[in-house]
């Protein structure tokens, strides 16, 4: 669930992650500077256009990722409706949609390891101060790995429970799931060591 990188190949996949992030920053700043409904509508149309370049299926996938935003859009509109400033509400809502959709576009078309590399590049000045930055990069990658794997392992464990019990598992699986997660972390640590771990930077 976390590697949101889309399997649909797009022209954006080929662009450098750093360039995409820089463009995203600039565009987001611009979105916050602009302050009219017309500008925001235009911005949204432009973003939709960017998605469409990669095809309808990709646009559809992008809309799927926007799901959590609609709740806030509704909230913002309702709030501003109550306070009587619907124009401001519309601008904020449209800006939110455009900003999140743009950020998602970068996420969907960049491999996570490329993004991390950009972060590591950003951290590289710290290295001159004697800070070991390699473990930070690993830690980021590992969190992203652990989230889906933890859910997967929990699912497997619940399957193991279901194979032998008609009842739904309850709190009794909290400890087993924790153990599986901790064991997994220990295995990953060993697998890292087997291929050099952090001593290689």
């Amino acid at each position: 669930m976390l590697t949101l990188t889309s399997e649909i190949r797009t022209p954006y996949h080929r662009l450098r992650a750093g360039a995409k992030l820089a463009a995203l920053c600039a565009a987001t700043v611009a979105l916050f500077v602009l302050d009219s409904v017309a500008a925001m509508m235009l911005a949204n149309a432009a973003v939709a256009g960017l998605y469409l370049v990669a095809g309808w299926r990709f646009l559809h996938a992008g809309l799927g990722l926007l799901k959590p935003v609609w709740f806030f859009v509704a909230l913002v509109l309702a709030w501003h409706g109550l306070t009587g400033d619907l124009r401001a509400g519309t601008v904020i809502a449209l800006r939110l949609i455009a900003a999140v959709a743009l950020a998602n576009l970068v996420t969907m078309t960049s491999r996570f390891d490329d993004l991390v590399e950009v972060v590591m590049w950003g951290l590289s000045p710290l290295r001159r101060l004697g800070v070991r930055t390699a473990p930070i990069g690993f830690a980021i990658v590992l969190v992203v790995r652990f989230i889906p794997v933890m859910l997967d392992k929990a699912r497997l464990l619940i399957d193991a429970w279901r194979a032998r019990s008609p009842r739904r598992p309850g709190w009794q699986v909290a400890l087993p799931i924790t153990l599986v997660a901790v064991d997994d972390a220990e295995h990953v640590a060993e697998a890292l060591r087997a291929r050099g771990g952090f001593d290689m930077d």
Partner: protein
Amino acid sequence: MERQVTLIALFAALIAVLGLVPKFTLASGIPITAQGMGIMLCGTILGARRGALAVLLFLGLVALGLPLLAGGRGGLGVFAGPTVGFLIGFPIAAFVTGWIMERMRGAPVFPAAICAAVIGGILVLYIPGILGMVAMLDLTVTQATLSMAPFIPGDLIKAGLAAALTAALYKARPASVLSRA
């Protein structure tokens, strides 16, 4: 080194996974979430320094735009919301929880963890949380403090669960409880 970094990453991920437990947002805009238990576990299991690092790692990923906060929120925007005090308080809370845990090395794990989680994960966390609400929601300190009342029962349950889990983990995998290693 690899072990410690992987365990830190694991607990950052654990906080994120706890964010999938449905949250319930009160009128003040502050949600009741299970993530607070993740913060407590970071302290009781990983100890002060590593626990705080795990939380910082989690917050770093949130800032990078991953939707890891309860309800699938993320990005820099959340640091401008009414919960920013709690977000700042999270690593402090994990640190204090872990610090107490490490001070109470002589005591059995369960009571030590309960004590640490209540002081670090509730009392210490509420202070920046309240200050954040004062700043962002334009409340008085008294109003903000009173608005914390609904969280207390839930947070006490979370402290109990965190302590029970820590004690059970200590029994099954003592080497993985870094606060006691």
